[in-house]
């Protein structure tokens, strides 16, 4: 099963490599990883997407908790949550008809065109991973020049929060 693990960790150099090292050393997979400091500059928030059986996920969370720099974590997929990922995608929009078609698709997906050149559009799309996949799916493969995805971030719904 796919799990989204949200981690608060000390914002120190080396903390990220401990997490990444744990996954490679124990043979767990990382589908995506995003990390940045929080409003408290001493803390970083990491969102990690991984796959595994319940037993493996239990070990992953225990092993993560064992890292000294991990302050707290939750498995977002255990409850109602919101998941968002941002994608920047540069597409070929040289011909007039494709230009209009791409613009329509961007509107349908509630995306934004951030940059325009004579031959390209650079588009921002935000949503679940599936939505981003779907957008890529509707484009003509040859049109796509470059794709940048932020990796998943997430937060629990309602009053539940991951804070110290």
């Amino acid at each position, binding site marked *: 099963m796919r799990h989204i693990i949200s981690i608060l*960790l*000390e914002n120190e150099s*080396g903390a990220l490599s401990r997490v990444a090292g744990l996954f490679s050393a124990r043979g767990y997979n990382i589908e995506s990883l995003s990390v940045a400091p929080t409003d408290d500059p001493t803390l970083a928030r990491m969102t990690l997407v991984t796959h595994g059986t319940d037993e493996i996920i239990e070990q992953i969370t*225990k092993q993560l908790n*064992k890292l*000294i720099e*991990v*302050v*707290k974590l939750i498995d977002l997929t255990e409850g109602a949550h919101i998941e968002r990922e941002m994608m920047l995608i540069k597409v070929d929009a040289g011909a007039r008809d494709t230009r209009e078609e791409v613009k329509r698709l961007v509107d349908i997906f509630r995306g934004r065109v951030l940059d325009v050149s004579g031959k390209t559009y650079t588009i921002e799309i935000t949503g679940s991973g599936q939505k981003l996949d779907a957008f890529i799916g509707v484009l003509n493969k040859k049109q796509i020049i470059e794709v940048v995805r932020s990796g998943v971030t997430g937060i629990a719904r309602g009053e539940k929060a991951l804070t*110290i």
Partner: protein
Amino acid sequence: MVLTGAEILIQSLKKEGVEYLFGYPGGAVLHIYDCLDQQDDIRHILVRHEQGATHAADGYARATGKPGCVLVTSGPGATNAVTGIATAYMDSVPMVVITGQVPTPLIGNDAFQEVDSVGITRPCVKHNFLVKSVDELAGTIKRAFYLASSGRPGPVVIDIPKDVTAHKAEFKYPSKIDIRSYKPVTRGHPGQIKKAVKLLLSAERPMIYTGGGVIWSNAAKLLTELAGILGYPVTNTLMGLGGYPATDRQFVGMLGMHGTYEANMGMHQSDVLLAVGARFDDRVTGNIEKFCPDARIIHIDIDPSSISKNVKVDIPIVGSISDVLAEMIRVLKETKRKPKDAELKVWWQQIEEWRAMDCLKYDRETTQVIKPQYVVEELYNVTEGDAIITSDVGQHQMWAAQYYKFDRPYQWINSGGLGTMGFGMPAAMGAQFAYPQQTVACITGEGSIQMCIQELSTCLQYSLPLKIVSLNNGYLGMVRQWQEFFYQGRYAMSYMESLPDFVKLAESYGHIGMRIENKADVVPAMQEAMQQKDRLVFMDFMTDPEENVYPMIPAGGGQNEMILV
């Protein structure tokens, strides 16, 4: 008080009560060595190789329960220490390793003797630090010792750049410590403990299976008390030996790959299993699919990640072993329920039947060869079971575990998890420093001993009267045994050709060497060696070359599928 980083380091180590610092000097740690030289409280022990320093500190820690301390230089000093750090990590040994580093402006420049020590040691430490400023130094040392010795213990590395040891700062050693991201649990959950006691008292075929956690938690007495109240059989892992007195009738021996018949059969047929500070290692469980098929399992451990890692358990209890056992004993004494005497009687009859198989029998009558088991048994007799025993890794390690009966914790010192050859002698040095009056014997083989043989020189320098018991069979015995069993006797590279003359070798290092070739000479040689109170004696026993360790659970086998002699 304004001090240099090197002075702060030494003062901080004193505050932590460090008696011995095992190390080797080099460019990056010269400021520290200069300071060490100007004080008398901490004794620096000069080893001959950094691996020896880490094993010696490890042996000190395993003999005392206190953290061992190491000081090495940057680059090769740090990489040489890695094997010893990984050894300590696998066996949860509290240790603080200080590695020198190139000056901060040079870090990342591929400077002379530069290596990313924090990166290299990251997967085999409990935690590690790079100290970037002298202002952080004292606090980091405080944290390192706290982390190393609390919770599930383990090695901590502090990497200190040379310029940090020269810079000055106000020295104030923190008296308290609070790490918001590290709060090890000590007390077990009362509800879980009650449930566990209830389950224990319902047992008809119980087993108590205990590991190194009992030793590290200083809970051997409590374990003995608990087992006494219940009257249940107790088995120890390789790391747990000494956690329960081996000469007690309730003790059924070590379990696992080379465990006793009664311990493994008892585990396999148990209906309730109490696992205490043990981690269901693959050498213990054998084939996990066949492990304890009928047992409901209670598992006490301070490390939540050890619970249900390999074997799913029914009642997990996270907490320090001593706290949880004390609470269990309290609950047991309060409850009116008693163990099921009638069923236990039948269970003990079964266990005694297994025990009567005498799975550790060997040819005791032969006078043709020296049986290695005989050497260990006689060592037990000659030392009256009281010596601190260290071992290297291989057949001799298993024979030491099987035939020397350990009655107290901190008496048996070996590399169980990592299986590090070369561990035994330097570990014995550490134990001997901790207990100068005790007999410390290292049971080893002609293969293992050569991996850290250079430490014979350290032993001379510090007059360490170790007793080295080498079971010399001319083979890498455990490798040969597996090749005999599973590779049709093709002995690829397991034969130790061109062995040195160990007697002359010992003598050239200034010690006493003995070669023992006849069975009749075994005991007299040991007695003579033990009389040499202030000399190291290297006893080279020429043992039966093709003796095997029995019983044995072959890889992939269940606990009830032992190869017996």
